């Protein structure tokens, strides 16, 4: 297992370089001149532009720029935004907020998704199951921003239970409503996954044997059905953790949260190479680690999976 983990961590190196190089190239080839754009309609003296270009190494070939950037990256210098703020500062503000939001959403969708899915699977074809399916279909088909605006209106504007926008510190209690919105679609998928998995496992031979042993229904479900049903759910949760960390742009926009999604979106619009690439690099690492975690959890849930080589 240790071997396997080590190997997977080593695999991160090429993934890291490949991803950053690709993103750097893509930002580099975006149309428009970021420096000229900074000054808007009133162009500065030609010498000034050249000077700024040299300062940000924009006058050098693409590959040289990339290596200068990577060199600095490993010395802890992530560069500065074109407005002069260090990128590391921007990250230190954005990532904790997004991490709180993502983990809260993950906890909500995992807990309620598995619970509802389990009950639906156990009562297949009954009223609860049918309603769960309808609700999950609704959540999947209605776009997030609609759910977001509706919940915002109902809970924040009408009932006044939550704030319409999240303050810049973004404490957990304020993030609850956005997390709920963010979790909604994944919750629906988890309900469906768990339900299918549970109802499959209920018909498994070993469940019948467990019943024949004289175990109580509660124990049969808790010990023999649930654990076997969690394997596909865990896979989904792991991949979802990655996407929650990086892709909450819509939700962050609705609740005015200064998280990762919004920051990267702004940086791409401004063509800020160092900011975009630095954020992406961290996201890649998070994604790979989340996937590794899933694979290790897999082995913990199912002893047949052993990573020997």
């Amino acid at each position, binding site marked *: 297992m240790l071997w396997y983990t080590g190997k997977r961590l080593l695999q991160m190196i090429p993934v890291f370089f490949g991803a950053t190089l690709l993103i750097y190239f893509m930002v580099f080839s975006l149309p428009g001149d970021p420096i000229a754009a900074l000054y808007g309609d009133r162009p500065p003296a030609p010498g000034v532009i050249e000077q700024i270009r040299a300062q940000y190494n924009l006058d050098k070939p693409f590959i040289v720029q990339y290596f200068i950037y990577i060199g600095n990256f490993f010395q802890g210098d992530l560069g500065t935004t074109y407005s002069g703020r260090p990128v590391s500062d921007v990250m230190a503000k954005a990532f904790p907020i997004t991490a709180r939001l993502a983990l809260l959403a993950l906890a909500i969708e995992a807990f309620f998704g598995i619970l509802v899915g389990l009950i639906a699977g156990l009562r297949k074809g009954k009223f609860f199951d049918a309603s769960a399916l309808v609700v999950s279909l609704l959540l999947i088909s209605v776009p997030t921003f609609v759910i977001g605006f509706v919940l915002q209106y109902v809970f924040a504007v009408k009932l006044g239970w939550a704030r319409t926008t999240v303050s810049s510190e973004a404490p957990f209690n304020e993030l609850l409503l956005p997390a709920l919105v963010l979790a909604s679609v994944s919750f629906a998928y988890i309900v469906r996954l768990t339900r299918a998995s549970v109802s499959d496992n209920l018909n498994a031979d070993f469940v019948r044997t467990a019943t024949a*042993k004289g175990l109580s229904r509660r124990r049969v479900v808790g010990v023999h059905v649930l654990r076997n049903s969690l394997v596909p759910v865990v896979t989904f949760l792991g991949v979802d953790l990655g996407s929650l960390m990086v892709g909450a742009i819509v939700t962050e926009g609705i609740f005015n949260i200064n998280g990762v999604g919004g920051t990267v979106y702004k940086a791409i619009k401004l063509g800020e190479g160092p900011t975009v690439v630095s954020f992406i690099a961290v996201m890649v690492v998070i994604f790979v680690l989340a996937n590794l975690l899933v694979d290790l959890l897999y082995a913990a849930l199912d002893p047949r999976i052993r990573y020997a080589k």
Partner: protein
Amino acid sequence: MSQTVIEPVSENADASTEPLLQIRDLEVGFQTQHGVVPAVRGVSLTLYAGQTLAIVGESGSGKTTTAQAIINLLAGTGKITAGQILFEGRDLTALSAKEIQDVRGRLIGYVPQDPMSNLNPVWNIGFQVEEAIKANNVAQGKAARERTIQVLQEAGLSDAEDRLKQFPHQFSGGMRQRVLIGIGLSARPKLLIADEPTSALDVTVQRQILDHLGTLTRDYGTSVLFITHDLGLAAERAEQLVVMYKGKVVESGPSQEILANPQHPYTQRLVAAAPSLASRRIQSAKTAGAGGEAIFSEGSLDATLVARAAEREADAAAKDLISIQNISKLYRIRTKGLKYNELLAVNDVSFGIRKGTTTALVGESGSGKSTVAKLILQLESITSGQIEFDGQDVAGLKGAALLKFRRRVQPVFQDPYGSLDPQYNVGNTIAEPLLAHKIGSSKERQDRVRELLDQVSLPWATRYRYPSELSGGQRQRIAVARALALKPDVLVLDEAVSALDVLVQGQILNLLTELQTELGLTYLFITHDLAVVRLVADNVCVMQKGRIVETASTDEVFDNPREAYTQELLAAIPGGNFQFGR
């Protein structure tokens, strides 16, 4: 029908004692979209304490449903619609969920059919046995663990203490079945329901496990309700038989009586078809001389087979069609890191197959018999030795020459569910080899498909159907037809009938025998079941651990087996202790 059935009454049970289990007019139905489909239609049976009763029937006869109804293990939509199940005078059908839960495991144990799927793959063995012990309040805490080890040891796992923490996938099929037997008997129940407990296992393992189960239940005084499709096995293991057909009991009574004098036509067919019984009959017919003939039911499988057995000796061709000399196959199994373990799957094997004959390769799983088949078919390369086919060395054939060889030697595999492409209809499946070898026009290929379907006794209309719409026996016929499409000289039949019900098994064996006579085919018949060998093979090679331990004609092997291992295999055929012919 139920009125004509005489309820089995045991000789050794005191008539005044109350029966342990009494099923009265049981009816079970499954709820479907088209209403309730009855699976069990008025079954009655009686089982006394200390007795063993077997329910025999083909798949779909309702035998398993009857057994599961007793402790209410019916799958979701199944329901008992009428009748009573009296266990020690208490009607189990009237119990609440809580009450039946108390009966399960503690009073009535259950050993399921397939050891591969009946243990939860994510919990270790010790846990799964221990929870049964705790649930039935046999012991708790530390005592439960000790009891777990004891239960497993009694079930035949001598190294139980070291293996408690191991998971089901680290156990062989036989070992898993022992675990399941241990679980079933862990609370010393009064009744054990054993649902085809050994169908998925090798004959030798089957015998060991059934012997062991017999000893345990006798020692504990446990009654056994034994479910099987093999009449021979049932008759050997149980004093009382109940034969089921389409949800009804068609015949019941003491085993010996039913076997010697089957009344119902279905029972007669079962007696005629079971290879275990047929092979025993051929043997006893030989010793009994002319008088023995009367015991064969008319026009049955036996008649053809006996006639063929006589023929065999006469028409022995001089030269071997396939000659195998000192072949070996070494597998390197990667263990940890860069280390390898070497496994000699086939070790210095030599034998010949004469044209127009059937040579059987017999052995238990892991003996290397299937590997030999793969080597002959050129699906795996040999490590050393030589395989000659029709005077030509086939090892290392490539391209066109290999294709030509493949045309002449075709395989039929064990699992008719796995070896047919579910997306291909029957016509396309059979025509595929022709297409692959670019033989004939579309019209000619269609004619050939028609001819082949005819040869395997399937109607022409079958060509538009898909494997999922066919029964196991029909699928295996399709597999045979596909193998015959290229007019091969040799068929390699790898456990080709092992997955089938006895009746279907008999039909396919009959078909193979007819085709052999008709088309002059040569068979290499690979099986773990010596009973089947008796019916079809001319020569037998017995394999054990990669080596051939005995080679002889079928008669010789059955009359005087030389090796201890062969004797063991022979003894494993059920029905050894029956008297045939009055």
